[in-house]
């Protein structure tokens, strides 16, 4: 990320961006001759437009030794292009009342602005210029590297939970770069050279590797004209071969124990599972979404009612799964232990597995399943209230290679999932040989 934006980068990773019916008349999609895909959604509730340019490149595209390349490139894009001096776009945007930022995730790099409708053309021309003529000046790289290192120290190294998550994710994805940290390992940042960034830019910043998403108070025809005018002249380029990150279905149970200063004991459990893109049975991803909701979604979920409230072993527990991904995924459960009733992590882990096992032995009650389903469907409506989230959702779907029809279909399947589907899915996927367990303990308690 260019600058801290509460929750956004994390949101991509940890929060399911819930579905919405995108096949309405107000959403349009087309592709320019050079391959740039454009998605436009009109919503005239307020005089604002959210514009986002999504590139299909992120940390899971990066080879070993070059972790953090996509994120560093995102920072350097602002250091000048044919029509812009370094950081000039910030000043232009600011003077027009445009707020902008950028974010990198494992499978995408996103540049986004919130724009007064009359100034949308400026945002598009700036992004088009950055797509085609970024200068990536060597003289700016050393300084920017320091900013990125600060970002890493502030957000990862000084944050015990993020530190623990970074390493355990890299274990949960042994066969792909999906577990590679978005910001990059510190030693890779130290040895990153500007020429690598230039090569990365040449490889991936092409119109045929990007999607422009415009949501808000716009006229679709005018947006089409603007997008064609500013992005149309950019040439299509050959792209490197793109292969979705696939994982070993059952790599074996993996455990990592980390002792970190200033940490409350906690654990994360990640199960290797398919996504909507890699599932072989259309019920798998919708069932996993419901399973995650049943386990640790709302306050009435199984883990929260049993382990947090009844047994009081935990002070926080959450479960997360999003099937919207171009490669394999994990269903993850994170828990923080109750220091007032402190039990060994191994014991707590077994209690969590016992709750999961109960769903393997007995299907969930119809009432419990309906409640989980109702929550997901209600969020489907609620998520349309915030247009920036709606735009991000369109982007997530597109990056995962999913059409809005496929997304509608997924909701239809979700409505038809039975208690037996849940039981079968738990038995098949929430198994020990798909499990990565991360224990985090305070450094002081280490006995050697």
């Amino acid at each position, binding site marked *: 990320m260019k600058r801290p934006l509460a929750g956004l980068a994390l949101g991509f990773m940890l929060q399911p961006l819930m579905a919405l019916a995108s096949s309405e008349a107000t959403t349009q999609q087309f592709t320019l001759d050079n391959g740039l895909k454009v998605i436009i959604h009109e919503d005239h509730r*307020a005089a604002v437009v959210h514009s986002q340019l999504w590139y299909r490149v992120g940390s899971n595209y990066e080879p070993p030794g070059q972790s953090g390349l996509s994120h560093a490139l995102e920072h350097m894009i602002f250091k000048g292009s044919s029509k812009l001096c370094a950081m000039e776009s910030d000043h*232009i945007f600011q003077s*027009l009342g445009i707020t902008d930022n950028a974010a990198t995730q494992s499978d995408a790099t996103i540049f986004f602005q919130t724009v007064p409708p009359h100034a949308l*053309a*400026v945002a598009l021309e700036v992004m088009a210029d950055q797509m085609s003529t970024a200068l990536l000046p060597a003289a700016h790289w050393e300084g920017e590297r*320091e900013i990125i290192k600060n970002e890493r120290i502030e957000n990862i190294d000084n944050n015990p939970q993020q530190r623990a998550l970074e390493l355990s994710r890299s274990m949960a994805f042994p066969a792909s770069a999906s577990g590679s940290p978005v910001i990059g390992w510190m030693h890779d940042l130290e040895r990153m050279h500007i020429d690598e960034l230039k090569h990365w830019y040449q490889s991936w910043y092409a119109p045929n590797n990007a999607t422009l998403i415009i949501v808000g108070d716009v006229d679709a025809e005018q947006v089409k004209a603007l997008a064609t005018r500013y992005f149309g002249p950019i040439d299509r380029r050959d792209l490197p071969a793109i292969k979705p990150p696939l994982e070993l279905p059952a790599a074996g149970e993996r455990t990592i124990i980390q002792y970190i200063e200033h940490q409350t004991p906690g654990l994360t459990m990640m199960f290797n599972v398919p996504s909507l893109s890699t599932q072989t049975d259309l019920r798998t991803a919708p069932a996993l979404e419901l399973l995650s909701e049943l386990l640790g979604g709302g306050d009435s979920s199984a883990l929260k009612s049993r382990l947090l409230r009844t047994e*009081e072993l935990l002070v926080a527990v959450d479960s997360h799964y999003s099937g919207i991904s171009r490669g394999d995924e994990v269903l993850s459960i994170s828990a923080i232990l109750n*220091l007032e009733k402190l039990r060994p992590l191994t014991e707590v882990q077994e209690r969590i597995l016992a709750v999961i096992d109960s769903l393997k032995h007995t299907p969930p009650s119809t009432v419990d399943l309906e409640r989980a389903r109702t929550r997901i469907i*209600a969020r489907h409506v609620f998520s349309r209230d915030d247009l920036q989230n709606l735009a991000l959702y369109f982007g997530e779907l597109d990056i995962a290679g999913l059409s809005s029809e496929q997304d509608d279909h997924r909701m239809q399947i979700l409505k038809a999932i039975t208690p037996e589907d849940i039981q079968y899915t738990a038995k098949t996927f929430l198994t020990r040989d798909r499990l990565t367990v991360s224990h985090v303990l305070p450094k002081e308690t280490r006995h050697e």
Partner: protein
Amino acid sequence: MSERKAPRFALLGLSAAILVGALGYFLTNPEQSVASQALDQAKSEHKLQSLAELDGKAPSHRALNVQTWKTAEGSKVLFVEARQLPMFDLRLTFAAGSSQDENTPGLALLTNAMLNEGVAGKDVGAIAQGFEGLGADFGNGAYRDMAVASLRSLSDVDKRTPALNLFAEVVGKPTFPADSLARIKNQLLASFEFQKQNPGKLASDELFKRLYGNHPYAHASDGNAQSIASITIDQLKAFHNKAYTAGNAVIAIVGDLSRAEAEAIAAQVSAALPKGPAVAKTVQPSEPKSGETHIEFPSKQTHLLLSQLGIDRDDPDYAALALGNSILGGGGFGTRLMTEVREKRGLTYGVYSGFSPMQARGPFMINLQTRAELSEGTLKLVQDILADYLKNGPTQKELDDAKRELAGSFPLSTASNAAIVGQLGAMGFYDLPLDYLETFMQKSQDLTTEQVKDAMNKHLSADKMVVVTAGPTVPQKPLPPPTDKPSEQPLGVPEH
């Protein structure tokens, strides 16, 4: 690239020059004109076509149609009808924040956290199942001035009616069960342990102590281990009876409802609350003693907090201070603090300043993290930037840019139901007029550089800051020089 060697103000001048042509603004600062002429020449073939073509029309703002009335029991209601999505938001705001804690820090927060733990015939699990089975979200939170309880639900009457019935019970007739109290106390005690390991939280708590002394804002809303452990069920009940009354409540409603439906909702909720008047307003704090406090903490980064008492929500200078602050460090990239500390020197990932107007005077605060060995130099740099800004005020261009930025981002303040219900809650709670947002916007657009400078100086003094730092004690290094000219070798001499 020649423009990398150009002085910084020249780069600013470039965009100003383009805007002069496009928007008809007249710049009187000769320095900027000269610089921008030079750059204009150098870059004439490159400038953004879209900027030149901007027709200069001001961003439109759709005024909210806010309806307001009082319930029979005395709750103030604010309502905006929004039919686009089949959902609604209900937000109750009570003057029941930690400033009402008196001698029991944490009482307000614990009362708020216990609302959804039990009602007649339902325990916490049944309440959660009740809301979640309807797809409804219940939310709660307690802060220094206020405590909030909210409901987001589908507007369909089959879902809405049972969700509202449960919400009215939870907010108006909570039973405060003993087993829940023990569990939530444990969670709070665990979070205190957690906080001991968070230098940012430690620094912030210390700063409020320094700023507010014996004032009710001095203690953190979540209290402390001793105070939380001592709180009884009777205290919670007494606090609820005093502070969750209809007379002490503001009811904000936004969504897919008619006026009649909103009136029925407000009447139902208000009637469910304890009867009683509004609590007394929080008194103003006295001036703190300036100076620096250091918290020793074994981290790589040092947290720096610089603060002074700011303003209350009624202060007539709010618009001038908000605009003045947006130029200093209000969050964007082009602010003075962000430009000097991050862009030119790479000392931090982010640096921000802000006023928090509250019922009584809230803090003005600058916060950032930097590497421990550069913390002293960075603190001095930030203090110098503030002093320079107070002494000289904003430039005309900075002010014009800030006004346009405000005008452009202003529609966001009411762009979603969630945003609108938050605005309504604040307007009702702080007794702001219904056209408050429009008035604030108009006042901001009419300000001059002198007015902004005067307002900033009336409320802030560079030498009266209360400073709290949290980090390790390590040998200090000089700051790197600013990189206006990044092609030159660093000289290793600090600028200040």
